[in-house]
Structure formats: structure tokens, C-alpha cells
């Protein structure tokens, strides 16, 4: 093992790094989909936030301002999705596709306008590795888990938080009910529209965190289309994890591991193209019902009309 994959600590560390944006975006997608709004725009939400983060950091020289920009951009784009799908009853798949295209075109457009260059932005202040005292001294897993960027620690906290919010709070109950039986939520006097706006808005913020980790945690610059399908892998993780925060995080870790192996394993052992297919193949397998069906929220994808 050692000579093929490098030190196990190194493999674990890069698994965490690859998994972090996936976990964050998948948690975001969960809030949206649990409220009944399909969000295939995660890719675009990540991309616009990755870009906005770099713009904010570049203007201010401060990584936290960048983070603020990123979350605001993710939120704004998510609200466009909500406006279209929930208020204007546009098709959710189409709107998500449009969000992706808008982010792709918009970031490339603004890259030229703001930085005067195509392709890659100038380097900015990012979120450097921030070893946690004591914890990072644990052999092997210490440096891998606790010598990471601040955004990674945030991800550690957000997984249980999301679980708690979704399954242990009245808000979570309403959100889930909105995705399953909106009529009942409506009858109980809770606005379906508002719950869906909350769900989609949260997806924008969380996917935004995932996006900004790409441009300011993994790298310290924005490159055109830098998400490169990660939003769709996050979507896959969400489904593979059966719309459950713990499951989705587990799936994202698995997919992150596959990516880490792809980078570290020697080319001729397993062609990297096949490793890259893995998340998608696994998702199709669970969708087809092998090893227990993955069942989506019942009212997902349908606009809700008051009778």
C-alpha cells in the first residue's frame, strides 16, 4: 500500500481536502431537495461563489471579506433559482441548468471585466492551513484531519448541525414535510413558499462555502470553470447518501477518497478515467435499487399550487 499511495496520512489528508467542497455542496443540496426543490444548479452556485470570494478577497486583501462575498453570491444565485421555481413555477431542472450556464458565462465574463484576463485570476489571500493545537499532534490522523483550512473545520461542524436541524428541530420537520406532503404543511398554516425559499437559500450558502473552499482553500485563485463537475458529484453524494446528512457526508468522503487515489496512484495501475467514473456509477447503482433503493422526497420537482 505504502509505496503505491504514499503515506496513509497524506492520503487521508487529501481525501479530506477533496471531500470538503463535496460535503458542503451536498449538505446544501439536501436543504433544497428536502424542501421539494431539485437543485441541479449546485455546480453553478459553487462556481459563482468561488469567483465572488476571489473578487472580495482581491478588493479588500482580506480572506474573510472574500468569504462574505462568496456566501452573498451563492445566496443571490440560489434566490434566483427559488424565484424562478417557486414563485414563477418555472421548471426546476431547466432553472438549475440555466443557473449553471449563467455562472459559467457570468464568471468568465466578469473575469475579463474585473481582472482583465481570461482563464485565471490573480492570486489572492486564501484560507491557509490552520493546525489546531494538540489535536494536530496526534500521529497520522492529527496532521490529516486537524491541520487543514478553517473551512474544513467548519465542514466538520456543519455535518452534525445539519443533521440536528433537519431531524431535531421544528424547522427541520416543516422543511421535510414541505418536500413530502406540502398540502399538509399548508393546512397546518405554514407557508410552503417560504419553506422552499429557506431550503433553496440554505443550499446557496452551503454550496457557496464549498465553492469558496475551491478558490480560497485548495487554491488561492479563480480559474475558469474550476468546479469541473464537482457540483454534480455533490448531487451524486446527496443521492448516494439517500438525502441524509450523515449518509451524504459519507458518500462525499468516499468520492473524495476516489479522487485522492486518482491523483496519487500510479497512472498505469487503474486508468484515472475509470476512477473518475466511480461516483457516478455508484449513484446509478443505488438509484436502480441495488443495496436498498434511494427514494427522493415525494413532492420533489413539483411546483406547489394552493387549491
Amino acid at each position, binding site marked *: 500500500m505504502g509505496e503505491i499511495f504514499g503515506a496513509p496520512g497524506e492520503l487521508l489528508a487529501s481525501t479530506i481536502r477533496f471531500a470538503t467542497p463535496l460535503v458542503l455542496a451536498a449538505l446544501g443540496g439536501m436543504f433544497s431537495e428536502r424542501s421539494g426543490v431539485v437543485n441541479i444548479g449546485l455546480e453553478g452556485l459553487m462556481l459563482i461563489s468561488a469567483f465572488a470570494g476571489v473578487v472580495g478577497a482581491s478588493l479588500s486583501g482580506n480572506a474573510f471579506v472574500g468569504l462574505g462575498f462568496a456566501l452573498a453570491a451563492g445566496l443571490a444565485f440560489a434566490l434566483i433559482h427559488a424565484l424562478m421555481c417557486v414563485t414563477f413555477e418555472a421548471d426546476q431542472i*431547466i432553472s438549475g441548468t440555466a443557473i449553471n*450556464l*449563467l455562472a459559467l458565462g457570468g464568471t468568465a465574463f466578469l473575469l475579463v*471585466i474585473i481582472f482583465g484576463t481570461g482563464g485565471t485570476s490573480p492570486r489572492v489571500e486564501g484560507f491557509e492551513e490552520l493546525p489546531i493545537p494538540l489535536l494536530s499532534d496526534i500521529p497520522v490522523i492529527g496532521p490529516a484531519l486537524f491541520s487543514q483550512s478553517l473551512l474544513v473545520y467548519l465542514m466538520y461542524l456543519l455535518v452534525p448541525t445539519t443533521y440536528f436541524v433537519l431531524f431535531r428541530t421544528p424547522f427541520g420537520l416543516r422543511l421535510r414535510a414541505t418536500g413530502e406532503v406540502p398540502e399538509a404543511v399548508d393546512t397546518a398554516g405554514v407557508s410552503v413558499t417560504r419553506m422552499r425559499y429557506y431550503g433553496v437559500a440554505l443550499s446557496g450558502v452551503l454550496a457557496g462555502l464549498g465553492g469558496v473552499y475551491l478558490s480560497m482553500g485548495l487554491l488561492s485563485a479563480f480559474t475558469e470553470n474550476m468546479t469541473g463537475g464537482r457540483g*454534480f458529484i455533490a448531487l451524486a453524494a446527496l443521492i448516494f447518501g439517500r438525502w441524509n446528512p450523515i449518509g451524504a457526508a459519507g458518500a462525499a468522503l468516499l468520492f473524495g477518497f476516489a479522487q485522492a487515489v486518482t491523483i496519487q496512484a500510479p497512472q498505469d495501475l487503474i486508468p484515472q478515467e475509470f476512477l473518475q*467514473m466511480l461516483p457516478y456509477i455508484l449513484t446509478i447503482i443505488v438509484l*436502480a*435499487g441495488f443495496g436498498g433503493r434511494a427514494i427522493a422526497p415525494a413532492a420533489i420537482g413539483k411546483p406547489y399550487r394552493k387549491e
Partner: protein
Amino acid sequence: MSEDRTPEERRARGSALRRILVNAGGPLVFPLFAILISFLIGAVIVLATGHNPLAAYVALLQGAVGSPEAIGRTLLGATPLIFTGLAVAVAFRAGLFNIGGEGQLFIGAITAAWLGVSLGFLGPLSVVLVLLACVFTGFLWGAIPGFLKARFGAHEVITTIMLNYIGINLAYYFALKPLRTEGLVPGTDTIDIAARIPFIGLGLGRANYGLIIALLAAVVAYLLLWRTRRGFQIRAVGLSPGAAHYAGMSIGVNTVLALAIGGAFAALGGGVEVLGVYGKMTVPFVTNLGYNGIGVALLGRNHPVGVVLGALLFGGLYSGAQEMQFATDVPLQLANVLLAVILLLVTATKLVELVLGKRARALAGTHLDEGLGRQ
């Protein structure tokens, strides 16, 4: 809305925009509305970035249709989008959402890149054989999500998205490993010029007879959907799966066939790109043609004629954007922004109702009336 008013009276009401759009006739209301708003938003963006929107749009128009060369570029860009648009439209008619055009196109492209080289010695005959092979591999690839839906109930939106990445990686694997050749850009060997699709000429630049193949494909799609028993069944399943089932039609078989036929169209598009434009498959290969097919199909209301028109609009925008960047320094990526806004608005039924009134909405129907979301 009172019923006693004459159409003339109704038409006289409302703003100029409303009148134009409502008079434009039912099916065009949604697309025209979306295009208009998108260009307005685009103008605001251009203005905000310190450029003159009028100059930008004039350059855009010139770059799209202003010269034979520009028209050639437009046609060149429209060609693959006709195929990927048809791939979406045919599946849509069965009530299915085919997001898999991207992967299907790559499967066709790698098929063509491989067979185009091995059969190249046959000359023009090779073109026919290679394109038939693309139809075949695309049909099989497209059938996968159909089968997964029919047999296991796996939602085709998710499976086709997943299959995109599987297809792209599969194609790249072949282009980078077994079929790789020495060269500056990684990719497959170049196909013999005699075994490629010839250029049209007439000063149209690199526009090639792939366009004619695309138009023929649109005719085939039309005949298939509206002039064959199978097409009737596919549309019946899309309109009302329950009724179709009751009438003895197999929902499963039609689901598989609609997605497989869609896959065949997209893969044919990939083959035409390789044989007509690039002569090989490079890594990376052209992206977003599959996703843009979704916009093309929706703008074209999932009708083959509409798909051709939608593809021409997309092709024109991309072609014009190059000229716009050259002449006015407005980055050409504006084209994607415009298209994204069009896509965002084109199914927003409530918005159309809000701006144009219920009559326009009722007149136009919705994009969803013709299949989407029924299965």
C-alpha cells in the same frame, strides 16, 4: 377576463411589448418573451461594464449574419446543437428529460474518431458507415437510462447526468490510452481528409455538409414522431402514460426507445463534429453542446422545426459574440449569459402571465403541456 370582448379589442389593450408578443402567435410567446427580456438584461450588463449596448448588439448581429463568413460560423455552431436539441426534444415528447446529450455526444465522437481512422481507406463510403456506427452506439448508450427507468424506476434526470460524466470519461480514456497518437494536443489520430464530411464552400468558411445531415435528422425526427405508429405511441406516453397504458401501449418500451433515439441523435452530432470539423477527438473536446441542446429544445418547444430555429439562434449568438468582442471589447462570454437568461425565463409560466396577462399564457400553453413531468 370577460368573454364578450372581440379579439381585436383584447389585442388593442396593453403595452406595445404585450401586443407584439401576443400577436406573434401562441407557440412563440414564451421564446420571444424570454429572448427579449434576455437582451434587455444583456444591454444593462453591457452598459454597467462601461460599453455601448447598441454598438455591442450591432457588432453581434454583424458577426452572426453580416457576411458569408459570419453566416458560415453561425451554421457551423448551429449544426451540433440541432442534434443535441433533437436528443432532448424526442425524449421530451415521451415525458422524459434527457440531460444526457453531453455524454451521448462524446460517445458518438469517440466512435467516429476510432472508426474514422480505421475505415478511412474507404473514402466517402467510410463517412456513411461511421455515422451509422455513431447512431448505433448512441442508441445503445441512450437506452441505458431508459432501461434503468423502465426496469428500476431510476429517475432519468439523475441517471443521464451521471452518464454524462461516465461517457465523457470513457471517451477520454479511449482517446488518451488505446487510440492515442503522438502530437502536440493529446488525442486520437487525424482522419484522412477523403473520409471526412466536405466543406460547403460558397465562402461559408468551415461550414460543412454536416448541416445538411442535421436538417435531415430534424426531418427524420418529425416523420418519426408524427408519421409513424411508434412516434404516436411515444407522444401518447408523454401526454398521458395512464391512457397510453390503458390503450395497450408499453410505457417501458416507449421510454427506452425515446431515450435511445435521443441518444442516437446526440451521438450522430458527435460523429458529425469529428468528421466535419475536427477530424479527430482531442482532450479536452468541445463541451457544453449537450447542455445547450436543452435550451435549444425548449426554445424550439420540442418541435424539430423549433429545434432548428433555436440552434440557429444559439449558433448566431456564439458566432456574433466573437465579432462583438473583437469590435467593442465586450467579452464574448456575454453570449452564455444571454442564453442562460433565456433558459431561465423560457419555462417561467407565472412570469409570462404576470407580464403579458392570462390570455397570452393560455394562448401559449406551457412548455410543460407537451410531455414534461408526466412520467
